[in-house]
């Protein structure tokens, strides 16, 4: 009985694993690609911008620059949309001392994107087969912020990109300002 139970459990485990959505990253031409796939279900490749270095004292730097896209979509239902969102932390952190930070704002279409709030960077509409990428995302560091850096060193900040399949279509006329 135990053997049978174990066999059934293993089968259940294998079957469960076979339908897991997975994400994997690979570098293609300077950008990074993250693939989401459900076997026999909707799948796509999320391409995100490559890591980037901001020039010293630059007040405004485009960090996305048409590089965020949803590619190779498969089995996307007509009434579904793939949303790719980005989230930022609002602070650069010194590598050697996390307590030292430089604040910045993320600017999208002349609007400040609050830290911690996802904003849509790219969308794919299943019905129109239209892959729309919102290109204008600028990191803005004021002169005062640059000057406030009391500690020299390398500062970094993660910009997290998330894509998901949703069962509604965001009107393209919104201009991508939909943040949900």
């Amino acid at each position, binding site marked *: 009985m135990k053997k049978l139970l174990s066999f059934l459990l293993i089968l259940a*485990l294998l079957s469960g694993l076979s339908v897991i959505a997975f994400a994997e990253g690979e570098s293609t031409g300077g950008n990074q690609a993250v693939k989401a796939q459900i076997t026999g279900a909707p799948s796509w490749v999320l391409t995100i911008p490559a890591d980037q270095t901001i020039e010293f004292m630059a007040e405004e730097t485009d960090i996305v620059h048409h590089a965020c896209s949803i590619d190779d979509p498969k089995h996307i239902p007509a009434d579904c949309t793939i949303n790719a969102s980005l989230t930022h932390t609002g602070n650069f952190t010194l590598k050697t001392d996390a307590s030292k930070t430089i604040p910045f704002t993320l600017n999208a279409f002349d609007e400040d994107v609050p830290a911690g709030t996802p904003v849509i960077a790219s969308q794919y509409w299943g019905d129109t087969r239209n892959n729309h990428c919102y290109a204008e995302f600028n990191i803005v560091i004021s002169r005062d912020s640059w000057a406030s850096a009391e500690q020299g060193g390398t500062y970094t900040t993660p910009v997290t990109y998330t894509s998901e399949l949703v069962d509604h279509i965001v009107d393209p006329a919104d201009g991508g300002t939909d943040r949900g």
Partner: protein
Amino acid sequence: MKRILCALLLCSLLCALTPAAFADGVQQVSLSIPCTVTVDVGEHGKVYANSTTWTGKIVGSFQVWPGTRVSFLITPDAGYVVNVLTLSGADVREGLRYGLYGTVVEHNETLVVRFEKSSTPTPWPTSTPYPWTAPIPTAPSWQVTAPYGPKTGDESTVGAWAALLLVSAAGVIVLSQKVGEPRTAHARKRK
């Protein structure tokens, strides 16, 4: 065993119930701020770094980009040695080799160097001077003076000539005496 199996079953069920596909990625954005390196030098020595020499009791600074390797050449005055060598508070004397200390600067750093009088005489300077165009400190003379006899490298020829003259004179005297004597025993008998 049952617990493990149950846990595996639960995991498999949870995975199978994952409602939608998703994909995440992280883009790292970075920037660099120049690092300030402060050099605090005590009396009786000097520190050379970043094309600058700090001599005597002085505090100076320079800036480098993070990730830059900076070398400090520390030269105590004659008769002095490095007593204190700290980098941002940490004792780094063990990293001192032939008067040279190097580090990769990742954030602001302060190098403190102090010198003290050496308890034992140092025949050679503790470091090789750099840059190479700088005047090379003269090493203490190790010339050994013998209490008597000729000295190696003596360029005076008067003594040599006098010695040669004396030897020649002695030779002439000896030879002249021998010339006056009969050469063989037969000659001596006839005489």
